């Protein structure tokens, strides 16, 4: 799947891209298939097992698409977090300290 980017620099990963939307769509699909598939499988209906397998496949595909990007975002962001935490305290002050 060459149209899915699997290698990300932190700067690239910070921007929203096609992969985010594909993952969001697969996420919705996985939820719908899991919900329906689980219920119909518990009633031993064949269509339920097919839907459930589709849900599991969608979940895996979502992970395949988004995980490299999430890893890149996380590795970069965690380094900045300490500084950001200090900044949040200042930004949200009710009384301006400085």
């Amino acid at each position, binding site marked *: 799947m060459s149209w899915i980017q699997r290698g990300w620099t932190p700067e690239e990963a910070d921007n929203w891209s096609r992969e985010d939307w594909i993952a969001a769509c697969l*996420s919705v699909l996985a939820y719908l298939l899991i919900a329906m598939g689980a219920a119909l499988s518990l009633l031993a209906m064949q269509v339920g097992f097919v839907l459930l397998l589709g849900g599991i496949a969608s979940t895996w595909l979502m992970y395949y698409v988004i995980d490299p990007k999430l890893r890149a975002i996380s590795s970069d962001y965690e380094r900045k977090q300490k500084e*950001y935490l200090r900044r949040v305290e200042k930004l949200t002050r009710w009384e301006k300290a400085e």
Partner: protein
Amino acid sequence: MVQLTALDWFWIVAFLALMIACGVLFHRLARRSEADFFLAGRGLPWWLPAASIFATHTATDTPMWITGVVYQHGLRGIWYASLFPAWCAISAMITTRVFRRSLAYTQAEWQSLRYNGLGSELMRGWMAGWGIFLNMFILGWVGMAMGKVCNFVFGWPNWLGLVLFSSLCAIYVMAAGYWGVVITDFQQGVIAFAAIVLASAWGIAAAGGPRAIVSRLETMGEGWRLDPFHFSGFFSGDFPVAWFLTMLFFALAGGLGMGTTIDWYAEAQRIQSARTVRDASYSIWAGSAMVLVRNSLWTVAGLAFFVLYPGLQDAKQYEMGWFRLGFEFFPMGMAGFFFATILAIHFSTIATHLNLGALYASRDLYKHYINPAASESRLVWIGRVSSCAVLLGSFLLGLMMEEITRWLIFALWIMVAGMWLPNVLQAVWWRFNAWGYLSAWIANLGFSWLVVWILPAYQVIPELPDYLQFWVLLGLGVLVFLPVTWLTKPEDMDHLVKYYVMVRPIGWWGPVQREAERRGLLKAT
């Protein structure tokens, strides 16, 4: 009443001892700092907040509600429970990332980052007050459901189950804060899921098994109950296509927003407690996926209950269906185990909302407005006192529940219908400002009364179904908040740039992005 043996009591006492012991074990971690008491030090792997989301949204009243709608609607009833969590499908990939990077403890604090000035302060105060009240309300509501279960099992008056078990849960919440909540939620989530599988399986077996449920429904002339898309018409009947499409749109597009549903507030705390952005995203996705699987189990158990006890007219009888499957069909000695799992279901929700209500009180009110220089130990102490205050408030609301429920459902509906679009816009559009948000709130209060109560009462408009009310309130709100937003100044650009660089929101942020690039804070794209 259910007859309990010595083995049953062993299960109940062992479970209570295990949960309270957790509070003792983790109280040292909780007392280290505010971040430990409310976010477990922001260091949790994804599966702990995921289990907490599942456990929190598995409350004592949830099986009553799901069994009730499935008894009435059959398999299509699953959508009442499973469309609502669908917002997490989008949120896990989009807004969870935005919110995690904001590092805000609460939704109210996030709004201080997104907006600034007087409007921002008004919103933070209001949001914090509403958050405290809403958590008390949920605690009272869930506590009363526990009261009803205790009435069914022991014959106790409703208030006793409410007060006794919420108080026992409060012991470990006050001692161990969010550490206690999330560790016990994990245990309770595992116990609850096992019990849901076992009790549902027992019920399905008692109804003759999956194939027998299908064939008996068809023999009874109730085969339509097996169709999850058995619509009553596009606009007509009790299950119209228009309702389904509205809820689907509302849930999915709502995943782009911040604070679109009341559930966001519990999720927000779990997102911030995850150790990385990646862990936060997976925790929201996986926690809600577990909720969907749970709904499917309860749905089929509800069908089994219908086959076993068809023709019940009283909602109070069929809403207890899943509990009856457990207590009536589990073998001797397992009734206590089943009650212990009901306690697990109950405690997980109570613990979350006690800690969350206390978070608003201590972080957004006490620290923000009263004592900004408070020490970490002082904030933890305030967190414990606030947990106790939220607990006491929940008793009061729980005991008033029969009288106030109708009004509070209306209040929640105001939150959801009229504020849906502003909640999305504040996350995706740089120009939307605090005055637009506040005007939407105020206008929505008036419009909701008009559309839901007053105009239908005077027969100016017909009584509208809830999904039409949603569209009408959304449209009326737009007529107010868009002009207000355009006629007032945008938020301060300096504030917006800081927010943008840290959070990197999705949507229409072009002018802010260009300003950040001009200042050299971001590389030009």
